């Protein structure tokens, strides 16, 4: 195999892996604190992209557009918790999960009304040029995607590992009653989790738009990709979700280069089956917990 192909394979794989990991982490945060699968997670990605495009086309600088879009996506995460999940907190987790689907439909409908069906795109952030390496090419936005994802992941690990609020979030995931008995409000932490997940989704949406384009309807496919990353890696651990994202990204790159295209979906299925047969709770399942 040609060297440039191998190089391109890694560039593509890492780039896709970062995107999937970023999508999966939103699920991880909400699920670990509330045990709800937020099936509206992809809608935050869509909003992050759409809002960034909207502000940017109004003349706002790209990084500021991104920031504002991300803040709005985060706030909507809070709205999802306060307006939908919190009122239904005494219902079953399955019902709450179903309610997130309702929220997703609502967001999608509103987005269609506001923006129409057209796809939109953004230029590479700050006009970053493409980098040619031998026969391979790094598209100018890729370093932004990888860099910002790394930054976000580092930030998350610092937050969860070294701040009292981050630890309190983990405590709620570990043992909600235990958390309550030391004065942690699980409801407030759930709100934070939704805001954080909305923010993460918004960031992912903004940074991938120059690569993938965005329309009102991309939310659900994004949800599916994020869910896969989360489940392949193990939704109970952040490291697992990141690994899952990377595995999926690499798998997609392999599929695109080596597997005849008619077998792409079968290939994805085989990976999933292999993971779930060997490690039913994901590649990195939580130790000592069921």
């Amino acid at each position, binding site marked *: 195999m*040609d060297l*440039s*192909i191998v190089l*391109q*394979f890694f*560039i*593509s794989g890492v*780039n*896709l892996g970062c*995107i999937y990991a970023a999508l999966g982490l939103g699920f991880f945060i909400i699920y670990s604190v509330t045990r709800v699968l937020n099936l509206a997670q992809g809608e935050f990605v869509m909003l992050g992209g759409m809002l960034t495009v909207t502000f940017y086309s109004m003349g706002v600088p790209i990084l500021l557009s991104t920031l504002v879009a991300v803040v709005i996506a985060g706030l909507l995460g809070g709205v999802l918790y306060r*307006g*939908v999940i919190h*009122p*239904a907190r005494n219902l079953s987790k399955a019902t709450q999960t*179903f*309610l997130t*689907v*309702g*929220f997703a*439909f*609502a967001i*999608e*409908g509103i987005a*269609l009304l506001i923006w129409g*069906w*057209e*796809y*939109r*795109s953004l230029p590479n952030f700050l006009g970053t040029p*493409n980098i*040619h390496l031998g*026969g*391979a*090419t790094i*598209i*100018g936005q890729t370093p932004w995607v990888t860099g910002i994802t790394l930054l976000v992941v580092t930030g998350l690990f610092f937050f969860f590992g070294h701040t009292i609020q981050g630890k309190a979030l983990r405590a709620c995931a570990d043992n909600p009653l235990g958390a309550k008995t030391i004065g942690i409000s699980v409801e407030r932490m759930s709100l934070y989790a939704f805001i954080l997940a909305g923010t993460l989704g918004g960031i992912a949406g903004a940074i*991938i738009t120059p*690569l*993938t*384009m965005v*329309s009102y*309807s991309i939310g659900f*496919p994004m949800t599916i990709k994020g869910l896969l990353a989360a489940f392949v890696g193990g939704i109970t651990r952040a490291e697992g979700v990141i690994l899952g994202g990377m595995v999926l990204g690499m798998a*997609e*790159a392999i599929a*695109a*280069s080596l597997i*005849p*295209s*008619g077998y*792409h979906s079968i290939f994805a299925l085989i990976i999933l089956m292999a993971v779930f047969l060997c490690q039913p709770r994901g590649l990195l399942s939580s130790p000592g917990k069921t």
Partner: protein
Amino acid sequence: MKRIAILLLVFIIAIGGTVSCASPSAEKSYKIGALTSQTGKYSGLGLQTLEGIQVIVEDINEKGGINGIPLELVPCDDKSSTTGVTLGAKKLIEVEKVDVILHGSTTALAQSTMPVADEGKTPAILLSGTALFDDQLGKWCFRPMGSEEDYVISFFQYLNEDLGITRVAALLENSGFGQGFEFFMPGIASKYNIEVVMTQHFDPTATDLTLQMTDIKNSNAQALVIWGSGPAGALAVKQARDMGINSPITASFAQGSPDMVKAFGAYYEMSPSLIVPASKTDIWQELPEDDSDKAMCQDFASLFLEKSDPPHPANFYNVLGAQMMLFVVDSLKRAQPDPTNVEKARSELRDALESTENLNLLTAVYTLSPEDHYGSVMQKIMLITFKDGGKILVPR
């Protein structure tokens, strides 16, 4: 109470009715069921097609209907899903009692219309990009859309005869749309003395095509043919240029849709600028005066500009939608069925559709027969390219 109200609201939005059809009612009218993707991933296609249908219906009604009988449009959303198509078609036939169904979405969904139309003995016109299932249309379905064969011909003819190219790489969508193109490609390539040195594929949802592009770049192809039905095809054009592939690229009409042009215009205009097929309506100003279609295309272009809301020039799918409707209008005029007897009207309309002969419409001339529901179609494919923010006819 407030919480329950919020919950209920969310549920209602969530469920939203599996199929939502608008149903105004007027007694003596021809009911046209427009089953298109209004939401979901094919909504771009579906909404544009619907817009084209609406413009013609409105125009006909303003001119007094067909022999004095108005048209009544019943739009219905198939939600970009096969279940949506089946449910929607059933509802249009059994509840709305439409005389004909126009289905406007993607190929995979068009196929789901066929069994329902057959069972309900209702004529259906399908919009679909592939000729691969033309032999399965049955008694009640029509696909007067031409074949992708004609597009392959237009590409290869141009690449070889105008540019002198003999080696081509193909990047095709992994779908019925791409399969149809691939089916016709080898035969036509050899006819035009072209060797397809590499065929790569991409999924309709793909976002990263750099790997395929690396292979293509490493091949000795002199030109690249991209055939996709959605945004991935346009991304392919962008990424080809990002990767430094500077050879001529021809792509499908979907890559020429207005939102893609808006998003990637800069890439489309990079020299050599992207080439896509279009209808004569797209570039009617550039048609020579002696072109017999010029007046028809100009009339439609100005009609569409006047009636569309917000006003915009007709694009490819607008034209296809309008054309489906014009196709039905022609048969209604000839058959003059009695709208109060739905079953009889459906059957008479079907017979009329089947006997369409030399009908000159915006993108082709149609002649159908009982054995041939896709029609021996003479397509009028124009190749256009992009310059200074607009579309121009490819200089030949």
